[in-house]
């Protein structure tokens, strides 16, 4: 008796909730794609600037540290970093940085102006989608750009250094998962920064958040290499970039010492969820009053 009542109740609910169930979910998908097409259109128009934006930093980094310094005289103290081995450490690190800066450039910067000055996000938040879907689209699109940016580093690391650095991928699913999770993580970080920080202060974010998490993100060195500075090795565990660098290390240059995959995965999932919730809360707070 009880179970049949519940069934009837459920049926009644679903009938009122979605008067046109199949129809309405396809409308939602179409709206979502509309937002995605808009972003693709804008990206296509600015594709060259986009490539320069994501490519410049790894290009110069690899050039100076793996092509110029190793060719300089042995007396140069900086050249000790510039060994062939350094390129192998740098490849996954620079991929992580490319993903991170894309998350900021593709979500935080535009969102901050769109909320703060031009309000041009209005038309998109007024589309017939739940607001979380509008935020998700932003993060998804930024993650697409982040992945493109990270993949760009692979050929650069092969052609620029004095000794070519080869990506040595054995575990493709791991690489795919790390890239997707990392790019969602930084997209969420971008969402949070874009929603909470006013356009006037967005420059400050680079100095007080992005530069520290990059330099302390196991980008230019491995986490295992920090064992002599134990306090730092513990402190950087709170930095999400560490898991992106280490995760890419585990999948792109597995011969270099790296954290175990399960630790990387759990931390990436944890930080994505935390930052995702924070970002969404900030986004909703800006859109709804």
């Amino acid at each position, binding site marked *: 008796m009880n179970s049949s009542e519940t069934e009837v109740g459920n049926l009644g609910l679903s009938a009122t909730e979605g008067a046109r169930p199949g129809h309405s979910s396809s409308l939602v998908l179409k709206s979502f794609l509309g937002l995605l097409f808009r972003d693709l259109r804008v990206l296509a128009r600015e594709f060259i600037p986009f490539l320069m934006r994501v490519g410049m930093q790894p290009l110069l980094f690899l050039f100076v540290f793996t092509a110029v310094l190793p060719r300089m005289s042995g007396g140069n103290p900086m050249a000790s970093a510039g060994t062939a081995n350094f390129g192998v450490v740098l490849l996954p690190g620079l991929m992580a940085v490319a993903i991170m800066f894309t998350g900021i450039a593709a979500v935080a910067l535009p969102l901050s102006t769109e909320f703060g000055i031009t309000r041009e996000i209005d038309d998109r938040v007024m589309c017939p989608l739940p607001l979380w879907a509008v935020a998700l689209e932003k993060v998804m699109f930024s993650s697409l750009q982040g992945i493109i940016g990270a993949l760009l580093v692979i050929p650069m690391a092969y052609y620029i250094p004095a000794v070519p650095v080869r990506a040595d991928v054995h575990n493709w699913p791991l690489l795919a998962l790390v890239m997707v999770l990392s790019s969602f993580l930084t997209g969420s970080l971008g969402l949070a920064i874009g929603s909470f920080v006013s356009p006037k202060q967005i420059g400050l974010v680079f100095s007080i958040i992005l530069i520290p998490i990059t330099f302390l993100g196991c980008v230019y060195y491995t986490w295992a290499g920090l064992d002599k500075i134990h306090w730092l090795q513990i402190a950087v565990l709170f930095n999400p970039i560490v898991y992106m660098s280490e995760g890419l290390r585990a999948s792109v240059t597995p011969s270099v010492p790296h954290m175990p995959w399960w630790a990387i995965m759990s931390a990436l999932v944890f930080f994505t969820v935390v930052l995702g919730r924070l970002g969404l809360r900030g986004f909703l707070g800006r859109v709804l*009053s």
Partner: protein
Amino acid sequence: MIVEIENLTKIYTSKLRVVAVDGIDLELKQGEIFGLLGPNGAGKTTTISIATTRTLPTSGKVRIAGVDVVEHPAQARRLIGVVPQYNTLDRSLTVYENLYFHCRYFAMSHSQAKARSLELLTQFMLTERKGVYPGQLSGGLAQRVQIARAIAHRPTVLFLDEPSAGLDPQSRMAMWSAVENLRKEGITVLLTTHYMEEADSLSDRLAIIDHGRVLALGSPEKLKTTFGAKTIFDLKLRTQDGLEALAATLKARPDVTNAEVTADGLRVIAASSDGLLPELVQAAAGHGLRDLTITEPSLETVFIQLTGRDLRE
């Protein structure tokens, strides 16, 4: 009723407690142009924000064609078009693309969106500007694109928030005629304004609101007759001495409805100005008359009688 607003309130509590909307009830009929007239800060924009799913009410309900905007915001957004106070056109897209992608956000296919955008460009005389970016448009043109964009998905109700704010007189006239034309398409329009000429000439019905409450509701004509629109004389005087006595004398006259002392002089409300003006000037001369403003019967005088203050104050 296509729009039902029931006992709507919105209280902001963040820093100062501000009652922006204080129990508003309104009903809009299908196809009418409805004006919300009130000074800045009266609660017009908050009311529109709630109805367009951008602000959550403290209490009360808004239904658009029967859909509750708080419970089903995404569904409600299909039924409404919004022209906000500010230029919110997408700066990264051309005029054509602003319309085209708006249609795509509302689930139209590529060919439907293209056809609808081209149709709107023609209707709003924007075809020549289709490839231009919003940053290069004048205020009037940008407003036209915003109206075109807002109706692109064929909404049932269009919300216009202060549509003529910041427009030159010519663009304002063009905007009015664009709104008039929407009537032919059967779109219900809710517009807010603090220009009484705009409310008077555009609206079929209007509500005068202040401090978050509806003070009067009806057609412009009805409001003017009900509240016996009168001529208002505002006298600015140098001295305040003996003004109370002067006000009392004036009030005793049969053609004067009311006379009261204001911060910088005297306000006299009268049925007509015939014969009264020279006497007023004479009576005020002793108090150092330095300025005299006469407001002819209009919605503005209705508003002043209802609230005791100017729309633009």
